[in-house]
Structure formats: structure tokens, C-alpha cells
């Protein structure tokens, strides 16, 4: 049944594409001759094509990293408390991380269906290894004497965790978030194969049109720019959140 659903979606996606190249109403000579990059096409199609794809892409990534972070934090805290959980968690998340995106999306379509849930489950599963490993490393890196001091001043386990261990682990956690965000933004371009969203959609459209170079470069470039911008933003967040890491230098 889901097999049928899969082919239905594929045909829906196929039907959504214009058979005639989508040059837009106003075809400049640049577009007609399929030059490398036509700025006029980009400005005319920003609203109808590129922006919705970009917005969808951001949404896919944000939701995936958000959910992935909550799950990873829980897993890491559990493994921090009970060391025996680390190994199985690492093995499972490594297997999930290793499965190529194209395959994982399709593997999820069978039980879940070709929808946003399959897409998000796959994207979330790719964040787990990165975030789990970084959060755990960060927590383990807290010096024993600092913990002892916290205990000595009468903090409970929970208080020590919230007031001492998590803040000190923050640089490692944000470093993990950076990697996860960038990785997920890159992987979200494949989502279009099972669910009609993200910057993969215009790339797919352009590939079916010859390929139409301007759209390929615009959509592909947007995906790369988005990843780099997100990375830079997270660096900024890290600096704001951990002023003590820079105070040392002077």
C-alpha cells in the first residue's frame, strides 16, 4: 500500500513540474540561451520559487536540529550518569549516521509514508551521533575539582548539573550544534525525493530542464550560503554564551 503511495507521490511531484522549461513570463535572452547565471531570472523568481524553497529548507533544518538536540541531550545525560549506555548509543547512532541519505529517506517511506514525518525522522537521526558525542564530551570535560567544589558547597546533583556542568560543557555543545546544523542543511536538499520541500525542489526542477543552469546555481548556492550563515550565527551565539572562554587570553 505504501508502495502505491510512494509512486503516487513520485507522480505528484512529476506532475508539479512544467514539461516546458520554467523560464518565467519574461524570458530574457540570457535565460533563453541558458547562460551560466541570469540575475533577472533570480530576481523574478525569488518570490514564487526560491524564497518558498529556502523557507521550507530552514524550517526542515530547524525542526530536525531542535528535536535532535532534545533527544541527544537526554541520551547524553543518561550515558553520563550510566556509563554502560554510551557504547550501545554510539553504535546505533553511528549506524544511522552511516546510512546514505538517499537510502534512509526511502527506507522510512515504507513504514511512515512519503511525508514530512519521514523527512524529519531521517534528518533527526543524522543529528544524533554528532550532538550525543559532543554533549557527552563536554560533560566529561568538566574538571573533577570543579565538581568537587560544587559538591563541597552543598549543591545537589541537579544543581551541579544545571549551574556548573552544563554551562562548562556549553562550548562543546555549541560546537556540536554547529556541525549538526550545517550537516542537516546540506542533507535537507535530498528531502525533495520523498517530500516536496526544501531547496532540492528547484534543483530538481532545473535538472529536468536541460539542465537550467541559473536555477541550479541559485538554489545550490542558496543551500551553501544558508549553511555558512547558520554556522557563523552559531559562532556568534557561542561567543555570547561563553564569555569566559575568551577572557583567558589576556
Amino acid at each position: 500500500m505504501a508502495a502505491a503511495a510512494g509512486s503516487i507521490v513520485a507522480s505528484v511531484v512529476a506532475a508539479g513540474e512544467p514539461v516546458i522549461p520554467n523560464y518565467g513570463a519574461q524570458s530574457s535572452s540570457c535565460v533563453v540561451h541558458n547562460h551560466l547565471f541570469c540575475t533577472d531570472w533570480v530576481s523574478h523568481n525569488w518570490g514564487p520559487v526560491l524564497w518558498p524553497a529556502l523557507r521550507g529548507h530552514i524550517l526542515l533544518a530547524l525542526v530536525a536540529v531542535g528535536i535532535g538536540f532534545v533527544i541527544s541531550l537526554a541520551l547524553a545525560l543518561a550515558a553520563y550518569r550510566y556509563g554502560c549506555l554510551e557504547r550501545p548509543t554510539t553504535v546505533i547512532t553511528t549506524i544511522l549516521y552511516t546510512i546514505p541519505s538517499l537510502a534512509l529517506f526511502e527506507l522510512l517511506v515504507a513504514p511512515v509514508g512519503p511525508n514530512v514525518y519521514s523527512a524529519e525522522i531521517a534528518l533527526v537521526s543524522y543529528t544524533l551521533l554528532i550532538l550525543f558525542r559532543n554533549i557527552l564530551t563536554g560533560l566529561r570535560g568538566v574538571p573533577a575539582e570543579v565538581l568537587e567544589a560544587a559538591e563541597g558547597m552543598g549543591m545537589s546533583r541537579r544543581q551541579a548539573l544545571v549551574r556548573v556542568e552544563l554551562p562548562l560543557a556549553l562550548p562543546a555543545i555549541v560546537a556540536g550544534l554547529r556541525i549538526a546544523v550545517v550537516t542537516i542543511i546540506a542533507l535537507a536538499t535530498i528531502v525533495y525525493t520523498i517530500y516536496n520541500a526544501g531547496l532540492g525542489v528547484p534543483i530538481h526542477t532545473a535538472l529536468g530542464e536541460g539542465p537550467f543552469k541559473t536555477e541550479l546555481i541559485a538554489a545550490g548556492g542558496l543551500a551553501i550560503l544558508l549553511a555558512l550563515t547558520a554556522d557563523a550565527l552559531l559562532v556568534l551565539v557561542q561567543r555570547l554564551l561563553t564569555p569566559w572562554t575568551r577572557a583567558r587570553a589576556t
Partner: protein
Amino acid sequence: MHEFLEAFRFIAHNGAIAGAPGLPTLTHLALETLRVAAIGLAISVVIAVPLGVWLGHIHRGSFAAINLGNIGRALPSLAVLAIGDAILGLGLTVVELALVVLAVPPIVTNAYLGVDGVDRDLVDAARGMGMSGFEIIRRVELPLAVGPLFAGIRTAAVFVVSTTTIASLAGFSGSLGDVIANETSYHFSGVLGAAICVAALALAVEGVLTLVQRVLTPRGLRLAEHERSGPLDPEAAIA
């Protein structure tokens, strides 16, 4: 779970579909995937390992080496393939180029971090005993950096296998991705079967590389690793 049964039937028939003769077998496509991926990985290793090791050896370029890794991760495989397609036209060369672009950064970053992280006292001792720069790299830094170095190559290998299948989406034919990209001919059972094969192939590559890494890691290092995770040695056992 009917789809999975169908998918495994597809795998059992090695990719043959009733009424559609002349399709390539799954074995053939798997080997092609491996071939394309292996060429890309090999070129990347040849470029990236010496570069990363050398940067680590001279302890320079940490900013470049580390940010290269971040940028590498930021490049979506499909976008790289798409842009390569737009500029150069799609073919094996462009696919390999995309594989190298994606695989070099993690290898450089990890090789750099591995060699740069080798205990400076060991390098000092080696230098003090009269080793040349090359001897220090070969006898001290490389054996001690095997772990991170291989972690980078493994990450790259996963990237490369994954990207080789994605190349089919961009219209490059000659990998297991062809089946996934062509649901019209293969139906969903074929797509799912190919997806299972791709996952198995990637896991097998990862497994083999993990084994190779274990063989290459010096025994003394594994023991040291063990000790580090255990309680600190209070030097009680002297003589």
C-alpha cells in the same frame, strides 16, 4: 511490511524485473558504485593526507584546516553536483570532482588535528635523539595519529558512497542510486530494495575501514588508551 518482502524479493532476483529485460543487475550497480566511490576516495586521500599531515607537523594553518572541514560539511552533495553539472556538464569527471571536493576537507581536518595533537614532548624527545623531520613524521607522528586520520577517511568514505548514489539524481548513471532515482521503471519495491543495498554497502565500507584502522593502530596505543580510561596510575608499582 509487505513492501520490505517485495524489496527483498527484488534483491533476491538481483534487480531483475519481470517484463523489463536488459536492466543492469544489482551486483553490477553495487560494484560500479564502489568503483566510482573508491576512485574519488583514493584521489582525496592522496591529496588530503599529505596536506593535513604536513600542516599538523609544522603546527600551522589550524584556522584553514579546521574551517575547511566546516565548509566541506556545508556543501550539499546535490548542490555541488548541480553546480558542477551547470558549469562543466555531468560526466564521470564532474562526479569525481564533486566527490573530491566533499571528501578532502574532512580528511585534511582530521589528519591535521591528529598530527598537531601528538604530544609535543614525544616530538621533542624524537628530535633530541636526532630524528629528521621525515623520520619524526614516519616513526612518531603518523603512528600516533592513526586514530584521527582514519576517522577522517571513514567520514569521507561515507560521504563519497552517499554522494555517488546522489549523483543519479543529477542524471549520472552507473550506481545503485539509478534504481532509487527511477521509480517509474523499478516501482517502489525496487527503490526500497536498492535503498537497502545502499545502506548495507555504506555500513560494510564503514565496517571494513574500522577493521583496517584497528589493525593499523599500534598495540601500545591501545593499551595506553585502556589505561587512560581506567583509574590513574599512582606510580605505586615501582620496582
